[in-house]
């Protein structure tokens, strides 16, 4: 199972980076989406996925069964997903404004504020 997630993470990173390097603002947005999902998966898989039980104390038991997976990375990802959602929402609004005001899609023409 872990190897699949690891390969998927790598695939998503590859897609994200490829899209960000494609010089189009809309593609860049989708690239950011891919990258943020890849990050979340990376955090999930980095400490190992564990045996696959959920870390919930069952009925009539007083402690967790041994070998439960660590729930903290999942909590971290939950936070990261929410933050990523906000960031993407802002980016979409920003890119829309850039289209409307500057009428630019290609990065290479976005050089007016560089020296």
């Amino acid at each position, binding site marked *: 199972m872990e190897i699949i997630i690891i390969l998927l993470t790598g695939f998503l990173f590859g897609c994200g980076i490829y899209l*960000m390097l494609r010089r189009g*603002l809309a593609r*860049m947005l989708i690239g*950011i989406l891919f*990258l*943020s999902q890849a*990050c979340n998966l*990376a*955090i999930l898989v*980095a*400490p*190992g996925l564990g045996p696959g039980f959920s870390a919930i104390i069952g009925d009539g038991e007083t402690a967790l069964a041994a070998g439960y997976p660590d729930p*903290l*990375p999942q909590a*971290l990802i939950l*936070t*990261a997903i929410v*933050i990523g959602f*906000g*960031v993407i929402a*802002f*980016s979409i609004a*920003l*890119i829309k*404004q*850039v289209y409307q*005001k*500057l009428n*630019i899609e290609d990065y290479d023409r*976005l050089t*007016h*504020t*560089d*020296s």
Partner: protein
Amino acid sequence: MTTFPLYLCPLIPLGAALMQLLLRGRTRAQNVVAVVSTGLLMVVGVTLVAYVKTHGQVVLDIGDWTAPVGIRLQADMLSALMVAITGVIGFCGALHSLPETSESDMKRGYHVIYQFLLFGVCGSFLTNDLFNLYVWFEVMLLSSFVLLAIGRGKAQLEGAVKYVVLNIVASMIFLIGAGLVYATLGTLNFSDIAHRIAEGQGSAAGIRVAAVFLLIAFSVKAGLFPLYAWLPSSYHTPSHTVSAVFAGLLTKVGVYALIRTFGAAFAAEDGFVLPVLWVVSLATMVVGVLGAASQFHVRKILSFHIISQIGYMTFGLALGTAGAIAAAIFYVIHHIIVKTNLFFAASVIDRIGGGEDLKKTGGLYGKAPWLAVLFLIPALSLGGIPPFSGFWAKLALLREILGVDAWVAASIALIVGIFTLFSMTKIWAEAFWKDRPDTAAAPRRIYAGHVVPMVLLAVGTVALSIYPTYLFELAEIAANDLLKPPVR
């Protein structure tokens, strides 16, 4: 005895932000709230420094969960100093925004976002948890995105795209770094990380990979070579107040994160990051100052100087001794005051001189000699001319550099200082001494809100210049706190 009410530091800006939200559309009331709340934050910050100096660090366990399980707010001397300076800059920025920020920006919620920015900055300085730091960074970043783009001018939007994209990518790298830290060490609490690394837990390779991710992420935020490109492309585009506050505070949050992680938490890591930081800092100093030399736009020159000066601060960290980190902390505080003041000066140059392009402005010395004085104090301080605060900061750093016989580094630091002075002289000669060209735009009015924060910060610089010992003592306490072997 009751401890210091640490919750005030994040809660004042948060409460103010919510109030600003309720007061939307009523600009006058919003202005009052902005000034009063940031003033309060400043008072609380300064009191916190005094409290920490006498009583040691203040800890607030949120929800009574103690560390390392719970996330705690913790103010040691470094955090206290940074919160205090956030209050000072927040206050000056609020004053400056009164005449500078346009009515339409105010209607779009400028004041609300400004308070959220301070909320995020304060939180970043106070948290004692790596992942929590990420969350605070995001609060700060999202606010800064909005502040940068709020005027919706063409240049602003373009600058915002560069700033937003690079910072989002950096945040993702930070997130992966935090995840890897947890994967290898099983903790995110700063003192616990230090403790476990010192005990030899976790694989050395895992720790190093995590450290590299964090180094890259914080280097982008701090504007270190070669990851600084977003800074000079965006910092000159928003309103003057926003650039001044960004220039003073935001890059320093990155420097703070570097000091906090690599000065303390990863201090026992086996010596990979600090040598890298050593080289990168020197490159940052040189590249920043050379970039500035080629510019003729006031705020672009100043933006490149931020980069160059960041190199000095991180070099102090790269040396790794208590004295050097103390010098770096002194440098951070000095630089925040001076740089914000220079950006305020840029706003007045823009208004009276008729533009920020040095070729199209001039004659300011005859027109506003008081501005010349207010510009010279921070400019000479930035260049490191005695007796100004920049001289003491550089002197302290140089002593530490020469303490380890790093002659190349010392000469680079000195030569970069000369080039810094060259840029300041360029602004002085072009904007102040040169005759006013006929093409200059008509001067616009300036208000008390432009001048008062400049005077306040200039007084701060002069105070630091005449009596640097006090801040040095505080910086030394902060550095010793950081380097103390971790206790749980």
